[in-house]
């Protein structure tokens, strides 16, 4: 991690106009995310954490304020293919094999067949699914499918990985396994990861910083630095340091 900032959110607000009613999804959020940082956006539903992520991803525009990504607007950054997205559901194309799912973004940038295959294989290797390259999504378990989603997000070698509650549909055991996998991928690739979740201990265990968002209206109520040593190990999950951090995070929610 460096002290260089890659994402700069400056007084960003989002107001939705739904049938004559104005709903403030996000109110005046300012946040700077460092290059190579693992940062979590944590909060209950309705707190605007996904809205914030979608603002960075150029899926919605802020009503006021600005978002800057690597010196560019989110749109420019998207067109420069600096983002890899991972959704709550794996969003795989059921008519493509695993390897061809990972190849999809490479096809879009018109990479040659050989290079595509080689690169996609590397990505599958990274998530430990090399042996399943020729399977179809429906033959894989939920956890494996989500790993394919991560491999696909990494395929274009983006600077930023945007993850929207990626593990929330998985069982506890699979989720913990994927935590280890994700951390090891992060260590090896030096990506900046913005990780949306509603699971407090998950956010603490994974992140360098936890951004606590509170609802009605959605706002950033605290940013908690996680000073647990890296690499994180499974033993840390039950450590008193982690427990006290979880308590601190829990205490910083407002008005729920």
């Amino acid at each position, binding site marked *: 991690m460096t002290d260089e900032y890659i994402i700069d959110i400056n007084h960003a607000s989002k107001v939705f106009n739904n049938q004559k009613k104005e709903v403030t999804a996000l109110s005046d959020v300012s946040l700077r995310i460092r290059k190579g940082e693992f940062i979590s956006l944590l909060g209950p539903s309705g707190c605007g954490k996904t809205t914030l992520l979608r603002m960075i*991803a*150029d*899926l919605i525009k802020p009503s006021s304020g600005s978002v800057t990504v690597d010196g560019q607007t989110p749109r420019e950054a*998207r*067109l420069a*293919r600096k*983002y*890899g*997205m991972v*959704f*709550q*559901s794996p*969003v795989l*194309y*059921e*008519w493509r094999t695993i390897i061809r799912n990972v190849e*999809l*973004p490479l*096809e*879009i*940038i018109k990479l040659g067949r050989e290079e595509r295959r080689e690169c996609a294989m590397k990505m599958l290797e990274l998530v430990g699914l090399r042996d399943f390259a020729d399977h*179809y999504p*429906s*033959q894989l378990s939920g956890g494996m499918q989500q790993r394919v989603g991560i491999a696909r997000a990494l395929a*274009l070698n983006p600077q930023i990985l*945007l993850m929207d509650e990626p593990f929330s549909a998985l069982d506890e055991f699979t989720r913990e396994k994927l935590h280890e996998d994700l951390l090891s991928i992060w260590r090896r690739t030096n990506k900046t990861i913005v990780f949306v979740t509603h699971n407090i201990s998950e956010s603490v265990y994974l992140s360098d910083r936890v951004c606590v968002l509170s609802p009605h209206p959605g706002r950033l109520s605290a940013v908690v630095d996680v000073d647990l040593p890296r690499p994180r190990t499974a033993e840390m999950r039950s450590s008193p340091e982690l427990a006290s951090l979880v308590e601190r995070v829990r205490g910083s929610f407002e008005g729920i």
Partner: protein
Amino acid sequence: MKNFIKRLTSKNGWVLFVWLAALAAVWEIGATVIGATVRNHPEYILPHLWQIAASVVQPVSDTQTIFGLVMVNAWATLSRALVGFLIGMAAGFVLALLMSLSRAVEKIAFPYLMLIQMIPILGMAPIVLSLTGDIGVSRIVIAAILTFYPVATNMLAGFRSVSREKHELMYSYAANTFVKYVKMMLPSALPYMFTGLKIAAPMAVTASILVDTLQGGVGLGCLLSQSLKHNTSIYAFWEIVFISAALGILSAKLIGLIESLTVGGRLSALSGRLIRSAGKEKRYEKQAEKTEA
């Protein structure tokens, strides 16, 4: 063929066979009752199945059997239905594509698409005939309209079924519209299109036959009218009933086959593989049981 026999000898096939036999028995009982009570030409109401079967080889002229006559007319009807079917398919595909590409087109076309579903198109066949002035063209037009509707609505449903996340994924890759359609929208909508085609195929066949009856000439419907007006053997009518039923069912099955060979292949081939491996496991288990015993 092998498959067919396999299916017939499987338990479900056996059930189907018993049902068919029961149906035939009911038909025969009905025919016997009608034969005993109706003195004047009972075959106009319900002939025996064997009478219909025997009529297949009966000659109507020196050179033709009734069945031959039916087949010649069936070809005339089917070829027209096929042309209309293909045109309707293409038109439905293009409209659904335009509707998914442009909000304005969608808004204009959607209420009219709903309206087509409600109005009795087939009842308008005579007016189509007088507008086009040609029975062959009318057959094509009617078959095309009837195919068009289910294809367009099902394709549209297919385009709409693509989840928001899939759209966002493409968006995050900054994929252009062409790539988006080739890689995502069309593959997603194709199974839906086949659903539409499976509905449309028997309808196109039926419609063609009905349009035939409006005017003399060749075609299953013409022959059917002739047969009912006693201009030719009544068994031509009964053969047509069976042939058209077979054509309707076969046309839908044919579409299903094409589907499984193309888009469905990836899914059914997959499930086939799964089922097969599951079967293998069972066999291994059985072997294991045997060896233990």
